[in-house]
């Protein structure tokens, strides 16, 4: 296994708090995999993102125990080059926008400029990414004239243009309509095809079920479950822990309870159609 990041018994508390926001976390992230992070609000999902990027404790201060390793090296030993390795998309897009650039094009180019990328290459990469995130038409607008949904896409573009190995994305679709949400997942899928590792916090569980490889479930700062999405998202006991499960999984479970012989609890729409159709056929026999 090619492990890009590892947390060894990590406990983290924000300054002036007694209760840790992340408790005794042991986690290995495998390169090229897409991890969906779920759990109720206040369960530690956003703090996890901050720990994986090193912002907790380097920026937020507070107390950390245990070890966070990036490609085997302690995260605290990296300097500026960490920004090239790990991309971070904030929950609130207003936090992401630099505030020093006049247009969306310049905003998306800002990170590459800081990395000293040649001008011609910057232009090519920025145009590619703006096309992919469907914000080309906003190129000349001020970042502050955008709607919440547009700003979320600009924030995402400004990070993926850097082509980091690991992308940490915190609720990128909260302001988006269903179409916009699907397009963000499609972009993340493309990043996965480029063998990037992805950590995504998201409440839209049906889309996690569709796209993610593994699911991490948090509650009260602890990771209470982790593993293959199929296994995790069909575990009905997680509903009692404040985690959401896909609509089709709940449907599948209720059908089983009524006596329909489903071979498995589906987690995606396609699986649901297959297993229900099969069970209906089975019942007729």
């Amino acid at each position, binding site marked *: 296994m090619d492990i890009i990041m590892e947390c060894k018994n990590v406990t983290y508390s924000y300054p002036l708090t007694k209760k840790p926001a992340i408790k005794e976390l042991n986690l290995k992230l495998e390169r090229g995999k897409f991890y969906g992070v779920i*759990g*109720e*609000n*206040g369960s530690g999902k956003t703090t996890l993102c901050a720990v994986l990027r090193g912002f907790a404790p380097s920026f937020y201060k507070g107390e950390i125990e245990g070890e966070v390793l990036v490609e085997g090296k302690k995260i605290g030993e990296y300097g500026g080059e960490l920004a090239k390795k790990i991309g971070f998309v904030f*929950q*609130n897009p207003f936090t992401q926008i630099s505030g020093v650039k006049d247009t969306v094009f310049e905003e998306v180019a800002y990170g590459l400029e800081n990395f000293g990328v040649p001008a011609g290459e910057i232009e090519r990469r920025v145009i590619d990414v703006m096309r992919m995130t469907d914000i080309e038409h906003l190129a000349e607008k001020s970042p502050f004239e955008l*709607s*919440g*949904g*547009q700003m979320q896409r600009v924030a995402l573009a400004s990070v993926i243009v850097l082509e980091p190995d690991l992308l940490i994305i915190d*609720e990128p679709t*909260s*302001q*988006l*309509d*269903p*179409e*916009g*949400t699907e397009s963000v997942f499609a972009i993340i899928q493309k990043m996965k095809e480029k063998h990037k590792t992805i950590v995504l916090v998201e*409440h839209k569980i*049906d889309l996690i079920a569709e796209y993610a490889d593994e699911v991490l479930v948090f509650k009260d700062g602890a990771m209470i479950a982790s593993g293959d999405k199929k296994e995790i998202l069909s575990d009905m006991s997680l*509903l009692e822990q*404040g*985690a*959401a499960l*896909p*609509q*089709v999984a*709940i*449907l599948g479970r*209720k*059908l089983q309870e*009524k*006596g*329909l012989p489903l071979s498995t609890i589906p987690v995606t*729409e396609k699986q*649901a*159609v297959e297993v*229900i*159709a099969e069970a*209906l056929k089975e019942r007729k026999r």
Partner: protein
Amino acid sequence: MRDLILKDVSFSYPGGFLAVDNINMEIKAGENVAIVGQNGAGKTTTVKMMNGLLKPTAGDVLIGDMNTKNYTTAQVSRVVGYVFQNPDDQIFHSTVEGEVRYGPKTMKLSPEEEDRRVNDALKITGMDIYKDENPLNLPLSMRKFVTIAAVIAMGTEILIFDEPTAGQDIEGNKRLSEILKVLHEQGKTVITISHDMEFVASNFARVIVMAKKKVVRFGTPQEIFWDFKSLEHAMLKQPYVSRVCKELGIEGNIIDIDGAVEAIMSR
């Protein structure tokens, strides 16, 4: 209690950007209505006209016989409460209770009535346990409930919630459902914008679809979520269970899990 009527309403922002193009709506007193549609469809502009924050550049917004054109925003907001999409556009007090009390305080109520309204609003939204907290110390999803409580405390007959489901977990969505139920029982008219089709399917009697600055269709969730032409035009999707039922060829305009279970088991 008054009906809310939008008659041939358009709105252009200063500078000429047309955001709403000649729409008509009739919302009866006591109705519980959802507005769905893409980002940029004109939903927020429409509801801001309902509460007088914006005045139509053509047509009329009528609350009973009250034409918003002839009243100030402050006057209209006594009848129609509006919960902003971004709670931080609305919060400016240092405690949750202070935030919720601010509105009723301006209304010169008796101290008992003022207390009753504040306490009721805190209780309905579950914010009573946070009443002494600084709202800015609460997570975004909770700040939304603070602003909902602040608007409920105003006691308006019509309430508008702009994307209350954004960023909510299942507990938050459950709490929203309960709030909608309580307000409905009190006879309030509630208009909610949401991108969450499951939430819309299970909480509203009527749905308004908007697309490209216009109203596409009014209907029950059963009608709307099986009207593929309207859904496609508005770039919306069916709820997940409806999609599964469609693929399985199950009829009956299913929009929720319990409906799907019943229909599938009776096959």
